[in-house]
């Protein structure tokens, strides 16, 4: 066989694929990215609301997101492109005793992995979120180093830097075959042609399962969907991303979350109690009436904000709610960076850096034990789903 044209092929130019390609290029690798869409970030990336937090309960997510925050927060000074980073922190206001116990119990674990987080009293929470309903407010957690980024600007910036480092992109090409020989991956085939490389990374997001099935690999990633919306711009009046973890009084929602982005727009989303599975990304009439009540109940003054747009995006879920990063044992050279469970955007840079290190150097950037805890060959039913999704 002739020498492959590329060192690595990344399937997917989204939240995970873009940074993976970029960091592989930083390792000196010649990288090709293929995506079935016509541009970067056209899958779930652009549906993300842009919150970036290390406030998780799973060690891998905490450490990977700390890395993401480091990359996002220094991006502008490093490359000059404004990606909308705001270090506004993440705030979980609490109104129920049970939530107070749960969040306080997580603090020592979170801190032990390097997260800067603490419990704040109701007055402090009221200062962080002006106009928050004080009725029954017990306080909340606040992690001041968390923040938010514009997914649109970030993917454009990553695309630019990836190209500047020699990454090539093939858009509008869906991978129809994974090429392999003797238990080793050799490349991919698309309607545009065959591309050869000894390393292929499946970063196909919601399509991860489909891509795996091309070689008979059952990757347990099934998407469900969340709707989101955005307001017209307003003068900035709060900085943190806010997560209300109470179930909604309407009986349809678990938590909901929102923030005010760098343009002054409030961007918001909720988690439905009954997951809406499947690939459908069309908007429903149910979303706005439900979230409107939740937002206004928490911050009554939000009633006057003008709603501009709504959309729906997919959460590529794993059975235990934990991501998958690994090399496929049955097909050497095939790597998985999938199952981001709706957090692909905030995890992306951390995952990309670690996958690139793992692939190029054989060792991830984070602790090896933590990295291995998100392996593909784990028992997906052993762990209870993550405490803080």
């Amino acid at each position, binding site marked *: 066989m002739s020498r492959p044209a590329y060192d690595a092929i990344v399937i997917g130019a989204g939240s995970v694929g873009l940074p993976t390609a970029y960091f592989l290029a930083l390792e000196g690798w010649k990288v090709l990215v293929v995506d079935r869409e016509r541009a970067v970030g056209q899958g779930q990336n652009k549906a993300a609301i842009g919150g970036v937090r290390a406030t998780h309960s799973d060690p891998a997510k905490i450490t990977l997101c700390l890395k993401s925050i480091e990359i996002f927060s220094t991006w502008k000074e490093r490359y000059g492109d404004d990606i909308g980073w705001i270090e506004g922190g993440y705030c979980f206001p609490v109104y129920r005793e049970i939530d107070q116990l749960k969040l306080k119990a997580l603090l020592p674990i979170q801190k032990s992995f390097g997260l800067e987080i603490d419990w704040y009293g109701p007055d402090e929470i009221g200062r962080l979120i002006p106009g928050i309903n004080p009725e029954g407010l017990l306080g909340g957690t606040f992690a001041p180093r968390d923040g938010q980024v514009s997914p649109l600007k970030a993917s454009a910036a990553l695309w630019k830097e990836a190209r500047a480092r020699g990454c090539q992109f093939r858009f509008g090409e869906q991978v129809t075959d994974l090429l392999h020989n003797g238990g080793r991956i050799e490349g991919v085939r698309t309607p545009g042609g065959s591309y050869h490389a000894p390393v292929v990374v499946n970063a196909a997001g919601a399509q991860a399962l489909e891509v795996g099935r091309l070689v008979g690999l059952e990757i347990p990633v099934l998407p469900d969907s969340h709707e989101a919306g955005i307001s017209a711009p307003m003068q900035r009046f709060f900085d943190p991303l806010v997560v209300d973890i109470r179930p909604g009084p309407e009986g349809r929602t678990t938590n909901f979350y929102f923030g005010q982005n760098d343009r002054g727009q409030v961007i918001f989303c909720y988690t439905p109690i009954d997951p809406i599975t499947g690939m459908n990304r*069309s908007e429903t009439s149910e979303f*706005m009436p439900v979230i409107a*009540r939740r937002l206004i109940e928490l911050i009554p003054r939000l009633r006057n904000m003008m*709603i501009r747009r709504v959309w729906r995006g997919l959460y590529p879920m794993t059975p235990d709610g934990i991501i998958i990063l690994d090399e496929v044992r049955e097909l050497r050279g095939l790597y998985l960076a999938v199952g981001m469970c709706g957090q692909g955007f905030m995890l992306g840079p951390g995952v990309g850096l670690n996958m690139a290190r793992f692939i190029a150097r054989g060792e991830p950037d984070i602790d090896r034990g933590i990295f291995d805890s998100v392996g593909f060959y784990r028992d997906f039913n052993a762990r209870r789903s993550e405490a803080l999704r």
Partner: protein
Amino acid sequence: MTVVRPGMKVRSCEGHPVLPPRDDLPPFGEIETIETEVLVIGGGPAGINAALELGALGIETLLVDDKQELGGKLTLQTHPFFGSRDDCYAGIRGIEIARILTGKLAGTPSVRVVTGATAVGAFHDRMVGMYGEGGYFLVEPRAVVVACGAREKGLAFPGCDLPGVYGAGAFQTLLNRDLVVPTDRLFIVGGGNVGLIAGYHAIQAGIRVVGLVEALPRCGGYKVHADKLHRLGVPIHTSHTVLRAQGDGRLERITIAAVDEALRPVEGTERSFDVDTLLIAVGLTPIDELAAKLSRFHVRTFTCGDSAEIAEASAAIFSGRITGRTVARELGYEVEIPPDWGRTQEILRSRPGAVVEWRDPEPPGEVFPVIRCVEEIPCNPCVDSCPNRSIAIPGDSIMGLPVFSGECSGCLKCVAACPALAITIVRRGHDPQRGLSLVVVPYELDPAGLREGLAVATVDMNGEAVGEGTVVRVRKAPGDPKRMLVSLEVPDAEAVKVAGLRALEAEEGAWGGGAADALSDETIICRCERVTAGEVRAEIRAGVTDMNTLKATIRTGMGACGGKTCTELILRLYREEGIDPSAVTRPTDRPFVAEVPLSAFAGIGKKGEGR
């Protein structure tokens, strides 16, 4: 849409608004869902007629419109309609037709009408979201008729975003519906019917219309509409375009220039005019996004009127009727669609035919009409108006040109009836001693200055000077009190030439004014997010062919309007850069069509508590 009422304080917002710090928890209300067999979106000529047909069959229909009154663009149309009297109210003014149609709806019990509510989004669960003064509600229809009309195309040139630059339709809304005269001197870009009629309406409102530019060698609108402007003294500059608009904070001056065959400005032909208002009338695009969405969600969806195809309002009436019956049949009702409806609709939406050369007629008698109808358009009120049946259109199509033969009693009904003001009546031998004939010309401007005995400049059909006439009588036209008939004494030899009287003196403008920079990089393309042509061009040249990427990188289409205007303008830039628009991925279309306050979704303040 918020109706301006006395006592309201309206001011523009510098920077981003402050969210009012109201921290009391308001009571929530329910979001109503209205089930209906058919939802008709848009209460213009097409939508009303679709609803009338559905209503005639007793089909439960909800007709919604975003304005306070039904009629759509009819409510702006102060001019009499073309077409035929039998089919589509020809000869009647649009505003009157709106009243007639609305009255008919009132007598149709199965049609429920909701005004002041905008269809803001279509959803995957086959619901349509509506927002208006009554709050937010949902409609669950079995079928939908989208009759939302059209929106005006934008035109990008330096200064196109200055206050004072209007879409012609927006301007007509201010002028004819709201009775606001926001200008003293205006200029028009675009010689289609919209631009020509807007100019005429402006003159009727006492506004000085300084001129009109049309990029093509001939106006696209009806010749009779152009002739009305010519006769009043408005220069129509064909093969010209607007280069730029300038002013300190608002429009003060425009520069125009001639264009070559490739529509490129010709250097050295620049002229400037001092105006405070510029109307853009460069075409319309159907509003059909909701229809596309609903179809994707497998809702039975139909379009009619301008939402289906841009045409005259008379054609929209038939489009609505046919669509109403088509929907009924789709829903299982047995009803005929008369074949001649389709034929009539075809005729009414025909483009104008050939223009025949005009020759002044030989006088056929002592009293006779001069019919200056030289272009085939669908119109025949003159034929119906003549009590002697002396006016006929040869053949069986109303597209043909009317011909006079036989007796004329001088009743003036044809002068009153012609929507184009293209007929005069000549009475020869009025004053044989002085060699004067009498000509009766139609006149729709303020007649206050037209005293008996006043000497006026007369013009021929194209607005060229003929001579002088003397006003001898001014009266209201029979059957149309809004039109005046002016009797003029003119020399016998000029009688058949005189088509009207000049109201304005043409302005030449100031020659010079700087060569073309129409492609300037500073021109604003996306007004919501203030994105310039230069920024768009840089992205195109960097190889971006997905307009979703433009949304991400330079934010075109991310504002309140969602790309309603800039999408077309950006595609034009792609074309200029040599990229076929068919190779460009269109931006993803998401709700909402218009911004909605969060409170509406929580059912807050349905009555009383404004925003």
